[in-house]
C-alpha cells in the first residue's frame, strides 16, 4: 500500500535531517533526542484518539497489553511478538520483524546504524504512556536485525 511507505520515507528523512544537523558537532556522539521528542509528541496525541472507544484500563499490565496490540497495529501494522515483565515496573517488548529495520538486512550488516532507527519509536511509546499517566524511560536494543527489543522502565514516584 502506498500510504505505508510515506510514513517510512518521512521517518528516514527525519533521521537524516537530525544527523545532518549535528554533523558539525565536534563530539562523535550522535544526538537523537530531537527525534525522540518528535516521537513523544506524536505518541501523546495518537493515544488520545486511540483510547477513545476503549473501556478504562484496569492496571498497568492492561495498558501494556494495549500498547502491544492496538497501538502497535495502528502504527506498524503488526502486533508485538513477545511481552515480558518482572511485575515490578520493567517491561520488555520484542518485535521480531521491526518495520523500520526489515528492509535493511537479515543479520549483522549495518548493525551500527540500527540505533538511529529506533529512537523515534522509543519516544512514541514514552509519549503514549505519558498521556496515560505512566511516566517511563524507554530504551531499545538491537542484537540482530530485523528483531528489536524495547525496554520500558516505569518511574514510580
Amino acid at each position, binding site marked *: 500500500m502506498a500510504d505505508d511507505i510515506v510514513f517510512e520515507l518521512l521517518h528516514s528523512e527525519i533521521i537524516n535531517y537530525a544527523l545532518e544537523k549535528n554533523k558539525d558537532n565536534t563530539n562523535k556522539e550522535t544526538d537523537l533526542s530531537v527525534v525522540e521528542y518528535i516521537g513523544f509528541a506524536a505518541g501523546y496525541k495518537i493515544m*488520545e484518539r486511540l483510547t477513545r472507544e476503549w473501556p*478504562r484500563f484496569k492496571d498497568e499490565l492492561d495498558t501494556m497489553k494495549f500498547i502491544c496490540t492496538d497501538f502497535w497495529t495502528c502504527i506498524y501494522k503488526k502486533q508485538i511478538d513477545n511481552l515480558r515483565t518482572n511485575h515490578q515496573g520493567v517491561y520488555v517488548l520484542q518485535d521480531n520483524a521491526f518495520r523500520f529495520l526489515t528492509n535493511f538486512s537479515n543479520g549483522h550488516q549495518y548493525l551500527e546504524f540500527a540505533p538511529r532507527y529506533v529512537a523515534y519509536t522509543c519516544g512514541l511509546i514514552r509519549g503514549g504512556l505519558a498521556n496515560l499517566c505512566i511516566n517511563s524511560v524507554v530504551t531499545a536494543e538491537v542484537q540482530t536485525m530485523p528483531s528489536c527489543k524495547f525496554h520500558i522502565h516505569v518511574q514510580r514516584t
Partner: protein
Amino acid sequence: MAVCVAVIGKDNAPLYIGGIGNDTSTDNELSRQWLVHTALDALEERLVSSNTTNTNSATNTTRTDLRDLYLGLLYSTDSHKIYGYVTNTRIKLVLVTSSTSPSGSNIRDAEVRTALRRLHALYADAICNPFHLPGDQITSPKFDKQVKSLMLNNV
C-alpha cells in the same frame, strides 16, 4: 439542553469552560466555574470506588460497567444537574444541564452519554493540532464553535 460544558485536565486545571446564554456577564462565568468544580470531588470519588471494587471483585450488579468512561449523574443542585465523563488519559469532561429550562428537566441518560462522547471526539481533534501543547488551555475558535452547537442542538 446543556447550559455549560467543561474540559478539565489531568491536574484538575480547567482547559476549557464554555457556556451558552448571557456569555458576557461575569456572574455567569463565576457560577459556571463553581458548578463545574463542585462536581470534581464527586468525580474523583467515583473513580476511586471503581478501582477498589475492581480489585476486590466484590462487585454488586449495579456497578458492573465501572470501566465505562461515562460516569453518569455526579451531582445535582436545585437548579442544575452535573454529568461526568473521564477519558483513559484522565481528562475530565463535565456537562451541566439546567433543571429549570423545559428541555433540560427531563433529559435522558442516553442523550447525555452521546453528547459527552461527541465532546470527547471534538477534544481529541482539538488536541491533535500540532500547535497545541498538552496541558494548555484550548483556545481554538473552531472547537468553541463546535461545542456551542453541540450544546444547542440537543444532540
